[in-house]
């Protein structure tokens, strides 16, 4: 394999993995605080639509990304208001958020269908980016990729080292105890939910600004659900999210190449491979003896403070 092709394949893997890393790391923080937000798909597609709309109207990728983040946060705020403010069932509210996001993004993005803009810029460091095999891979990605990896490192540090991260983990482990010690369970959960929304929005914006530089309704194609599965796959540990996302990204790219090679299998079947791989990985992981050992103990439970 030539160095060119080698890099190209690996770069497509990273590109496929980046939106998953972004959405998963946000959902991971939300879940560690004890909130199960199944609306990742809805927040993500809103981020995709608004991100493209913002970037197209302003001509700036940065403004587009910001619009995506804000759209994701707005959706998360709605979810937080319902589940944390009014203690509504999180599963039902999350599913509703996804349906709502899919519909609303189609409506708001209707005027942008069929428009195209350039891909967001890629990093270029003279010399380094031109190294054979790894130059482009390590030093020539678009900025979103570096943001995604930076976020994972930041979240890993925040959860394990910082005092606020400790309080967040405590909230997800036992909200009654957290309340008894005087921690503000609802504020912590709301902020964690907003962070999750921001990350999902950015993941959506990545799709329309860097991955496929155009908007079409329903284009997240289940990536929000995969991101949710990756959090479980990662046992709620930040760096394992990267591993899971790269595996899934790898399977996606592999099946594309398999389709091109035309093994005689139907394309639809090959397209399903990454999703099947995710299910198989989840089943294998959950069948272990310490089943769901890492899941935050208070995940998905509504908290109502007695006063």
């Amino acid at each position, binding site marked *: 394999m030539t160095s060119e092709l080698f890099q190209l394949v690996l770069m497509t893997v990273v590109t496929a993995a980046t939106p998953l890393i972004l959405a998963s790391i946000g959902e991971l923080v939300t879940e560690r605080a004890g909130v199960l937000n199944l609306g990742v798909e809805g927040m993500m597609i809103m981020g995709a639509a608004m991100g493209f709309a913002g970037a197209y109207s302003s001509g700036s990728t940065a403004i587009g990304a910001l619009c995506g983040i804000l759209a994701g946060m707005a959706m998360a705020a709605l979810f937080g208001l319902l589940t944390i403010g009014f203690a509504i069932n999180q599963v039902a509210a999350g599913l509703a958020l996804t349906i709502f996001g899919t519909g609303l993004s189609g409506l708001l993005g209707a005027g942008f269908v069929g428009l195209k803009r350039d891909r967001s810029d890629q990093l270029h460091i003279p010399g380094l980016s031109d190294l054979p095999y790894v130059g482009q891979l390590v030093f020539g990605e678009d900025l979103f990729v570096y943001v995604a990896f930076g976020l994972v490192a930041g979240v890993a540090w925040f959860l394990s080292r910082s*005092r606020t991260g400790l309080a967040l*983990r405590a909230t997800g482990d*036992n909200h009654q105890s*957290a309340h008894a010690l*005087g921690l503000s369970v609802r504020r912590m959960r709301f902020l964690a939910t907003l962070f999750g929304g921001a990350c999902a929005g950015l993941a959506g914006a990545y799709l329309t600004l860097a991955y496929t530089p155009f908007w079409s309704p329903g284009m997240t194609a289940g990536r929000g659900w995969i991101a949710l599965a990756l959090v479980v796959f990662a046992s709620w540990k930040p760096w394992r999210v990267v591993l899971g996302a790269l595996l899934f990204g790898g399977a996606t790219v592999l099946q594309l190449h398999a389709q091109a090679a035309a093994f005689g299998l139907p394309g639809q079947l090959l397209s399903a491979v990454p999703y099947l791989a995710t299910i198989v990985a989840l089943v294998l992981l959950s069948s272990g003896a310490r089943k769901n*050992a890492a899941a*935050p*103990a208070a995940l998905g439970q509504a908290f109502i403070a007695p006063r």
Partner: protein
Amino acid sequence: MMTEQERRATPLLSLRGIVKRFGSFTANDDISLDIHEGEAHALIGENGAGKSTLVKIIYGLLEPTEGEILFRGKPMRLNGPQEARAQGVGMVFQHFSLFDNLTVAENIALVLPTDTPLSALRGRILEVSERYRMPLDPDREVWSLSAGERQRIEIARCLLQDPRLIILDEPTSVLTPQEAEALFDTLARLKAEGRALLYISHKLEEVRRLCETATILRLGRKVGGCDPRQESSRSLAALMVGAAINDIKTPSTRAFGGERLTLDSLSLPSREIHGVDLDGVSLRLRGGEVFGIAGVAGNGQSELFEAVSGERLADANETIRIDGAAVGARDITARRALGAAFVPEERNGHAAAGDFSLTENLILSRHSGDGLTSRGLINFEKARTLAQQVIKTFDVRKAGPDPAARTLSGGNLQKFVVGREILSEPKILVINQPTWGVDAAAAATIRQALVDLAARGASVLLISQDLDELFEICDRIAVMHEGRLSQPCDARAVTREEIGLLMTGDGSGGGAHAH
């Protein structure tokens, strides 16, 4: 500035006319009390008397509806527990306020001021643990610790804030006798340092030993104060309940029949993450016998109950026998058909469905017997009659003729679920923690019913953490520790200390486990 003398005369904490209402329910009604430095003050009363509500107010978790709190003579208004801690009030919770998946050090860090560096914390934890002789490993995760160790974390966490008043809510309810002794040593040390203790308990012997003043609550009101050292446990109990409690009448002679329930090397791996595996549990239970299983919570008692009741099936059919018939792989209904009955620990949600009426709850466990169902249809008329019979026989107090189970108080619902099984005249009754959180009068009723059932020839397997209860009504007692069952001891020949040693796994002598 106050002089030293004024300082001593001023109580550390005074409550003046505290009232707390939840909707139309009054949990605390005009309660006043004083606590001085170096004083151990007991707060005693039945379940539902309002003790926990009152201490939550002192700790800033609840706001009083009326009344005021004075700390060193100055009014104190608390907006959350952080402010209570800053003033010098610490609390050791009954159901620990710990986080299972965090380490000891992380659990403690959460309540200290935010500017405490985590690195300095380890040293301070070790220092406190040494000073008060409470061994603690800062790096262990809480789920792997025993109840006694968990309580030490709570106490260490409280002490690191140098509190002047320490509230302890039922601190010994989950401890072995030896762990309780260690706790009393620590508490004596704290008292000697001039710290005040507010001690909540319904174990009156402890109160008499530790405290020099007591406030007695009944149904949310203060009904009196006393010096517990001048009272007997019996007179304190009468003050608490407002009436004398009947002694349990046990038959003077007992005749044991043939073997009714047999467990033969029952082993079962746990399904829970932090659960306990059953390891070679054997026992033989004769007719007419009350057999007690003691042990600190979480040593396999719930797993044993699940296996015996058929909620979980054993791997081998022969490991469990009812009247000689192998039932290890048969379900609950099959075991009930052979004459067994079961009362699980959690009354609301496990023994009874909260939103179902009492009649419907009766059907839930007795559907296959008593002709309650035929061809898949329920005979509601008959079920109603049986439910009313339980209600009448066991004096279940309730609102309305057939209310939802969750509207009953703990003691009354427990009387109902126990009565439901006993009135079906089972040949074997397996019952887990029947009087946990139940008031003294209801507890006496339930224990008497168990003794009477055994006197009629049935076998009773009683799983309990309450040693007083076990010694009161059992013929033989065995101890569960880490999923293994000790050899049974004759309840009249064994001492509490021997049982206590078995509970910690130290009983090497007479209690070597059976395998």
